[in-house]
């Protein structure tokens, strides 16, 4: 596997321009002769489908939900960053670039991140033109807020529903192209396999979720916009259907998987309250501006928070990090919460929560002020937990939120398989080892609206390929393989459900293993333990899972089982990657790599690279490749929050 990043020549600020100038183009009249498959209709997928169709390509777009508007981008609350500098507070493309690459703890590619900052402004213009109702100032100009600890106000927002509004904007652009016939939209179809012809991505096999029918589709290029793999942990803030299947299928066909261990864990989620819990709900981090985090000093203290006197409370963030206190970055806050709970000081029925107390802020500023700031969050919290944060401290706990790792892509967002592109959360490219708040939306739309068009033209314009249709033997072979896999899954249920396990039971087991050993803080011992325990879970799945029903109908258990099967395989490279990265960086603390005062210690000499895993067949151990990261324009610096 060769990792050629294809970063264009020239100074950083001119690379994108140079690249667009030197890239091959496809004549407008010829574009209709090319077909492109897009998997996924989140911000990246919907915007890419619409944009490519506008340019004249024949686009086939697929999603697993009943409508393209359901993709999980819709759940993003906070906002979207752009270097508009509308607030005149010193923002610039250079600053957004620097913040993003520094936020990612210097584990991403300079050129990609700079381009992201460059096109961020176009995204805002595009969305405004589509009729996205961003918040406005009284004078009618766009409003901004500061977000995720940024020192400038560069975040554009539409109430707490920015992701929804941006997605609906992209969805409307997509709908327009569906109407013109340039996009053929396939809903409720799940990509089951990638098809290569002559080593290039030429099509996919899908399963119709309603009828169970396997179908094949061919194209000149395939774009994956299938999101992240946070659901490997079972509990995450991802949607229930979010999965790694498409990316994993591509990986098994030769696409390198980059930094799979980089998973962002968000500190302020509503805690788990029982084994039946199906997902976690995120609450805005802004809560930490006024809330004080604490746990009882005595482990196993079951008194209600109100009856725990002040001197028996441990405001651990404030005592440990006097400079930043409760406002330490996400990873530090998350890690410390888990630490406290591991010491037995966790609160709530599951002992997996810490308090976030607003009592002091309320007595200082009054209820009205606090409600004005956090009213809707308090409401949401009360709806779910039936407890009023004005009366009793909130309980919070970290949860898996975003995956920075993903398919390895070059500057063109092309994977190591020619003709296969990965955009949005599905690729690894822009967030390094940690993602800044309000940057996910920015990246999804940058890739879809402004970058992929150039890449596709460049690829199609410089690649000679024969017309292939889905009668090609590679397609029927792939289809047979998929059928085989489904049959194998359903084989397990021949002897009935007795003594067997449900898909979710096994998924929870995998989730727990990853959470315990491949979560926020990792160590060699734990990761090696996880690596030895994983095969047993895989085996349990294949021998002992019970999936009711058949493959020729709407069968939600079968859908989940197929996704879990891929998560189980994928988990191996996640753990391996974590094991291999013997440094603390971004979201993760590697326990062996700490400073004297227990802070994360990055190791630039040893790990300033992207770790890319290559699939070596069912028996072979995954092979590690490295893309060295060169920093010519910024100097990596160590973080300190003391």
């Amino acid at each position: 596997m060769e990792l050629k990043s294809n970063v264009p020549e020239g100074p950083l600020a001119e690379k994108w321009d140079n690249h667009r100038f030197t890239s091959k183009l496809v004549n407008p009249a010829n574009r209709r002769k090319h077909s492109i498959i897009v998997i996924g209709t989140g911000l990246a997928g919907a915007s890419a489908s619409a944009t490519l169709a506008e340019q004249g390509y024949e686009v086939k777009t697929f999603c697993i939900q009943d409508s393209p508007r359901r993709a999980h981008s819709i759940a993003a609350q906070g906002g979207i960053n752009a270097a508009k500098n509308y607030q005149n507070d010193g923002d610039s493309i250079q600053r957004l670039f620097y913040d993003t690459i520094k936020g990612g703890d210097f584990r991403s590619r300079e050129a990609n991140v700079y381009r992201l900052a460059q096109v961020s402004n176009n995204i805002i213009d595009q969305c405004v033109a589509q009729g996205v109702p961003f918040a406005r100032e009284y004078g009618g100009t766009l409003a901004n807020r500061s977000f995720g600890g940024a020192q400038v106000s560069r975040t554009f927002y539409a109430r707490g529903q920015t992701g929804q509004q941006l997605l609906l904007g992209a969805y409307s652009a997509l709908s327009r192209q569906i109407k013109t016939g340039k996009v053929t939209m396939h809903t409720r179809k799940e990509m089951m396999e990638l098809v290569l012809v002559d080593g290039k991505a030429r099509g996919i096999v899908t399963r119709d979720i309603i009828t169970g029918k396997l179908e094949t589709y061919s194209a000149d290029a395939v774009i994956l916009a299938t999101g992240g793999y946070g659901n490997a942990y079972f509990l995450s803030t991802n949607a229930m259907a979010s999965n790694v299947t498409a990316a994993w299928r591509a990986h098994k066909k030769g696409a390198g998987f980059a930094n799979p261990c980089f998973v962002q864990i968000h500190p302020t989620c509503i805690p788990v309250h029982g084994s039946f819990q199906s997902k976690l709900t995120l609450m805005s981090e802004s809560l930490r501006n006024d809330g004080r985090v604490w746990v009882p000093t005595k482990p196993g203290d079951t008194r209600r928070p109100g009856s725990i006197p002040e001197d028996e409370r441990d405001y651990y963030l404030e005592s440990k990090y006097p400079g930043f206190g409760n406002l330490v970055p996400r990873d530090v806050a998350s890690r410390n919460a888990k630490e406290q709970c591991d010491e037995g000081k966790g609160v709530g029925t599951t002992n997996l929560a810490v308090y976030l107390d607003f009592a002091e802020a309320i007595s200082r500023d009054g209820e009205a002020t606090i409600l004005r700031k956090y009213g809707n969050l308090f409401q949401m919290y009360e709806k779910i937990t039936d407890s009023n944060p004005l009366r009793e401290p909130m309980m919070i706990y970290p949860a898996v939120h975003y995956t920075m790792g993903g398919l390895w892509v070059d500057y063109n967002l092309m994977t190591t398989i020619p003709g296969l592109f990965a955009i949005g959360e599905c690729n690894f490219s822009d967030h390094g080892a940690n993602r800044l708040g309000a940057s996910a939306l920015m990246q999804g739309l940058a890739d879809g609206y402004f970058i992929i068009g150039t890449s596709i033209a460049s690829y199609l314009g410089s690649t000679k390929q024969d017309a292939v249709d889905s009668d090609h033997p590679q397609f029927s072979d792939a289809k047979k393989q998929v059928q085989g896999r489904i049959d194998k899954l359903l084989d397990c249920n021949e002897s009935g459900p007795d003594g067997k396990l449900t898909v979710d039971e096994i998924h929870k087991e995998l989730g727990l293993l990853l959470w315990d050993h491949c979560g926020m803080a990792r160590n060699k011992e734990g990761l090696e333990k996880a690596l030895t325990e994983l095969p047993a879970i895989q085996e349990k799945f294949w021998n002992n899972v019970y999936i009711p029903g058949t493959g020729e109908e709407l069968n939600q258990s079968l859908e989940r089982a197929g996704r879990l099967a891929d998560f189980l395989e994928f988990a191996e490279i996640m753990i391996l990657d974590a094991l291999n990265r013997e440094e603390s960086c971004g979201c993760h603390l590697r326990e062996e790599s700490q400073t004297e005062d227990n802070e994360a210690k990055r190791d630039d000499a040893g790990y300033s690279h992207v770790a890319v895993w290559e699939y070596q067949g069912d028996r072979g151990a995954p092979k590690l490749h490295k893309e060295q990261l060169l920093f010519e324009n910024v100097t990596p610096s160590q973080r300190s929050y003391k």
Partner: protein
Amino acid sequence: MSTTSINLSLEIWRQKDSKAKGDFETYKLTNISTDMSFLEMLDVLNEQLTREGSDPVAFDHDCREGICGMCGAVINGIAHGPEPETTLCQLHMRHFNEGDTLVIEPFRSRAFPIHKDLVTDRSALDRIIQAGGYVSVNTGGTPDGNSTPIPSATAELSMDAASCIGCGACVASCPNGAAMLFTGAKISQLSLLPQGQPERKERAMAMVTAMDKEGFGNCTNERECEAVCPKGISIRNIARMNREFVKASFF
């Protein structure tokens, strides 16, 4: 937060596929924690059914935080259940009592055929949007975001309408199976904004025509849609659509 457990009796619509004739089946659930969401309660039922070797209840769901619009069923006659402005996934079992019988039915409308159990086909709503629920701008070449000032109040009104999650509860609850609130919300969102002006008339005409073609019923102003809407979208948007459509038809 006081956790208690309740026992429930569920009457759920079971239908094998779109052609099958469905019927209600009764299930008993014991020890349901009141901290569960409604969908988690269904998860528990499905785990139980799976272990018994029977077919679990198919139901649509995805984000489980009340924004994707994928989930939805009619609980004891009310779409998304008894709590106002709450989707099914955000409805918690503490709103039910020990021994309750819950009748769970799929969203029903001529325009929403049933795929299986509680899973319906709501693609008609997508086709209404495809008819004109957009501003025809291509990617690139758009003016600076601040080039057209929009009064904050107007942006907020537009946002009120834009917060529709497309779940279809308005259609399901309407005694006439009408999609006026859904269509009205999108027409309103864009007609309020300067960006929506150039296509204002074409949009109103095209979207209302598409809505009628899909087999949705007529609006008789019963306000059920507004009452069940998980995002609290007002029928003021329907009034606005009425005006827009008349203007587009006559002027």
